[in-house]
């Protein structure tokens, strides 16, 4: 015979002060958070700027800028919502939800991250102005040849452990252009130029963050144990508890099949969407809704009730309380 859902036997009403419970809870939590705040404070790692990045790692900065210019950078070929590339487009089977909204935040890395920011500098440095003019007037094949020559020299400089780069003549205008961009970055100009909008007020950091999102941030994040492969989503900078409640979400990124999939993020979304639906709809899911009956922890929570109302005492009285 099927067990009924709720214990039908009438329960005695016991005086209970709900408001007192809430007030005591407020006092307990107040003491808790004030104590923790006074003793431990809270983390505040200063943000990274393009200026600090370009001063600390000028060659990594040049690699980033070259990738933006020649289209080999991650954002240059990212795909929606930034552009029409396909480098970071994720699929679920044959469907790509990522492609449906299209390009809503257009980013052309060569134009937005290199050529446009060079314009102010070009007005005061004729060498930069003529380099940009030469580059713009060249064929795609010529540009690629310059970029390749520059990239080879840059790779060699990085390998040799050099701290600066003497661009080869074969790199043509790319040498003075990227040298100019590095100079602009190191005096703090690029931070502002990537942020400036024609509407004066700025609240959108898409461009500077997309510029920094690659090697620049990963190098710093890995020293702080924030990488995705380090369960980083749960972690906080410094010795602080992080977002422990994201443990299940970040767990999936530790599964090699998902971590190595080009559509890993989309897969995790699907898994979490299903699990979230299960959580929300537990009351109506057969099996799951009876799970606590089997776990039996309820016998502990209501142990006094069961002791005082043994099942053997007889069937429930039909009369109400």
């Amino acid at each position: 015979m099927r067990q009924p859902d709720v214990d039908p036997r009438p329960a005695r009403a016991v005086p209970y002060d709900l408001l007192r419970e809430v007030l005591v809870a407020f006092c307990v939590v107040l003491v808790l958070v004030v104590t923790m705040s006074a003793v431990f404070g809270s983390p505040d790692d200063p943000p990274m700027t393009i200026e600090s990045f370009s001063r600390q790692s000028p060659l990594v900065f040049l690699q980033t800028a070259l990738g933006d210019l020649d289209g080999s950078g991650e954002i240059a070929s990212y795909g929606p919502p930034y552009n029409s590339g396909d480098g970071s487009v994720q699929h679920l089977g044959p469907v790509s939800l990522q492609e449906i909204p299209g390009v809503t935040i257009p980013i052309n890395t060569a134009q937005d991250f290199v050529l446009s920011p060079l314009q102010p500098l070009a007005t005061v440095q004729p060498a930069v102005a003529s380099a940009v003019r030469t580059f713009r007037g060249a064929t795609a094949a010529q540009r690629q040849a310059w970029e390749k020559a520059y990239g080879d020299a840059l790779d060699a400089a990085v390998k040799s452990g050099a701290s600066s780069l003497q661009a080869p003549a074969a790199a043509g205008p790319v040498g003075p252009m990227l040298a100019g961009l590095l100079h602009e970055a190191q005096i703090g100009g690029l931070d502002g130029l990537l942020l400036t909008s024609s509407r004066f007020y700025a609240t959108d950091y898409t461009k500077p963050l997309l510029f920094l999102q690659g090697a620049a941030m990963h190098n710093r994040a890995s020293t702080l144990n924030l990488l995705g492969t380090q369960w980083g989503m749960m972690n906080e900078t410094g010795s602080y508890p992080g977002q422990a409640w994201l443990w299940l979400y970040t767990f999936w990124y530790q599964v090699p099949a998902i971590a190595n999939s080009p559509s890993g993020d989309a897969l995790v979304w699907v898994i979490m969407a299903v699990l979230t639906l299960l959580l929300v709809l537990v009351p109506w899911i057969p099996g799951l809704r009876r799970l606590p009956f089997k776990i039996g922890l309820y016998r502990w929570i209501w142990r006094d009730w069961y002791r005082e109302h043994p099942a053997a005492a007889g069937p429930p009285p039909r009369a109400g309380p």
Partner: protein
Amino acid sequence: MSNLTARLRASLVAALPPEQLLPDSQPEYVRSYVYVFGATTLASFGFLIISGIVLALFGPGWWHVSRIGHFFNSIHFWSVQAFFFFMVLHLWAQFFMAAWRGGRGITWLTGAVTFVVSLGAAFTGYLSQQNFDSQWIAVQGKDAMNAIGIGAYFNLLNFGQMYTYHVFLLPVAVAALTTVHLLQVRRRGVVPPIPPRGLGG
């Protein structure tokens, strides 16, 4: 034509009579401290709102340059920790009691949805800190948002958008859901125990 106001009042009072909305007694089986995790979650939310209001009064940059501001940020930070700490304990307790029984499914559902919306509120908060943590979470999270097309409209790299979600839209949603959840709890009352084996006639 009957009086709409009177009908609304009558149905509200019928659904939640005052002595049920603010009861001064509970059934005898309410005898464990697991019942107070809801109240401590609510208290943590209260301190989130209070510290959040102080931070909002002075703007998003204040706490980086003021010792008092940093202290209120710490209160906000630890209130988040307390909020999720107690909310998860509350969720565990309600799960092990199978608290959705006896027509309390909507109570569970509103609670679970509140948890999910709170994740968004916390997430946009981490994005509004204006420090390296925010930068990193933004650039890491963007790929996940873009992967399913959300990033096209919900841009983690747009501080203004994330900040307004965090200080207005999501707290209002959490507060509204919490209100519905609490009214549901008061309307249905605490869940009676699971019947012991051998009772089912």
